[in-house]
């Protein structure tokens, strides 16, 4: 068996999910300036909801995935309500810290609703793995990569070609101007949180066939996705995609060639290296993050 190819496939399949999470972090950071700690929980919510729907009603797979997306929309709306309606002072720091509370509450709510059960899904494109050059590729890898590709292109079109996308881009550049032109902060926040949550939920549904999902699946995915977002430059769409895939690949390489025990540390080491040496990320040079 070809270990290199095997590592690449394993890395891409989970890296695609990190990429979706990273894009979510970037969209929220652009719209609100905050780091959204609930981002990983969206993945968990998407995966668990798709799994529950599948297990209880056995609908066709697209229906399960659509339910995950719908759960993502709800989670995004809840986030906006939870972090932007309680206080007048909307500093990025307060929203960031508030999302920690939301993440804890979401996780606990799913724990109580599911009673700590785990959920999975069948593969979307058939259970039989593909054999490529002496390695085995999971069909789910193809699906996840396709989703990332469609999301990247779709979001890029949305931000450049639509009126709402333009407003969100303007809010990323100068939130005060956008507010003074009559677009309230909570409208921007609602859009970015819903987009981020739908991306997360899609990632969760795509991950469920590869590894079972439960209430505690989200936290670590979210933190690794943040590392991916920082690697590509927080707020940079394509940077986030590349960052996610790179972290997935390095993680798989460490697990494949080195020690599987330290695979989880990879994302955090990369996060520290990027924060200490190049906090604007590999591709972006726009924002000043040092004081």
């Amino acid at each position, binding site marked *: 068996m070809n270990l290199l190819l095997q590592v690449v496939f394993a890395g891409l399949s989970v890296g695609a999910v990190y990429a979706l999470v990273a894009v979510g972090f970037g969209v929220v950071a652009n719209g609100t300036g*905050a*780091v959204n700690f609930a981002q990983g929980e969206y993945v968990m919510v998407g995966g668990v909801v798709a799994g529950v729907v599948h297990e209880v009603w056995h609908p066709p797979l697209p229906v399960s995935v659509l339910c995950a997306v719908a759960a993502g929309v709800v989670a995004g709306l809840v986030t906006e309500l*939870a*972090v932007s309606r*309680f*206080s007048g*002072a909307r500093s*990025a*720091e*307060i929203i*960031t*810290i*508030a999302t*920690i*509370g*939301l*993440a*804890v*509450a*979401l*996780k*606990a*709510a799913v*724990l*109580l609703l599911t009673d700590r059960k785990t959920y999975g899904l069948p593969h979307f494109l058939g259970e039989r793995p593909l054999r490529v050059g002496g390695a085995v590729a999971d069909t789910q890898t193809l699906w996840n990569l396709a989703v990332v590709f469609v999301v990247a292109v779709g979001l890029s079109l949305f931000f450049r070609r639509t009126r709402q996308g333009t407003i969100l881009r303007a809010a990323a550049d100068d939130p005060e101007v956008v507010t003074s032109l009559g677009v309230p902060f909570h409208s921007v926040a609602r859009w970015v949180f819903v987009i981020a949550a739908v991306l997360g939920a899609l990632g969760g549904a795509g991950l469920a066939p590869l590894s079972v999902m439960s209430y505690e699946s989200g*936290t670590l995915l979210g*933190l690794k996705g*943040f*590392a991916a977002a*920082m690697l590509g430059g927080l707020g940079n769409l394509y940077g986030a995609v590349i960052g996610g895939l790179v972290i997935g690949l390095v993680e798989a390489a460490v697990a494949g060639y080195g020690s599987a*025990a*330290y695979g*989880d*540390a990879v994302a*955090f*080491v990369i*996060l*520290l290296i990027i*924060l*200490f040496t190049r*906090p604007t990320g590999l591709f972006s040079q726009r924002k000043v*993050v*040092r*004081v």
Partner: protein
Amino acid sequence: MAVSRIRRWRPTTPVITAVLLAAMPLIFISDFARAIQLRFCVMLLLLTGLNFINGYARMSSLAQAGFYGLGAYTAGILAARLDVPPALAFVAAPVLATVAALVIGAASLRLRATYFTMATLGAGYILYILFGRMTGVTGGPNGLLGIPALSVAGIEISGPLPMYVLAAVLALLGVVVAYNFERSRAGRALRALGASEPAAVASGVRAFRLRLFAFALSGCYAGVAGALETFDATFVSPSSFGFLTAVLCVVGLTVGGAGRAAGPLIGAALLTALDELGTEYAGYEMLIVGLVFLVVVQAFPGGVAGAAGARWPRRGARPAVARATEGSAS
């Protein structure tokens, strides 16, 4: 500054802490109660330490659980595996935690607040992974066993009551030091920095050095808390030092009142109560924690202590900035 007016005496945080720590073992005397009381002392140390950086300096650290674990494992590994005298292992724990805080702080304290938070999260998580995966050194997920009893100058400190007395003395010492620091020149400068960085820097406060000092203090306190935990439980397991513990420290301090002397005391009491609730109502307590934190952060940024301070203000109290900038420009 004018001669201060005669004020009605009010109990200060160290006085309240001393009374509380002395009264608790007299009122509740079972071994079970002693375990809870010791837990309270450990929490108090963790939150009082965290208050330096999260409260006074207003830079949210998520590394407190990592430093706590570093203290616990340092004491445990030295005493159980390397046959270092337990008292020396106990002292080594805060030393190593302080050094770790200095190293991590030196690299991350020049970043903006949100990025500092993420850097401390990353560093704390790496420590947590090391605790669980360096099986040869730490015992891995099964935990570290065989920790000897603590003894100082031939006197053995073991059993619930002696351990509690040690924990209470250390916790009180920690609270007194923090209370005096808050009123010292460096403490006022640090609070000024937290309130407004440009104003403080313009008044001659050296921002980076002061923050590093505050972060090192937070690490030192966590190290003491870790060593206490190790010698009390005579067992160390990585699961106590994960992301959830880091978040709970921030939650406890914020709900208690970050940046206020009474904040850690209230927060530690809440977290200790939560610990007990959690064993009975698994799941619900975290839902409540999340929701309460969500509301407190946004609607009552001063926490319980802040809300109480606004309700019953001290006579002659002036805004922290005015007090804090005094004397820092010389």
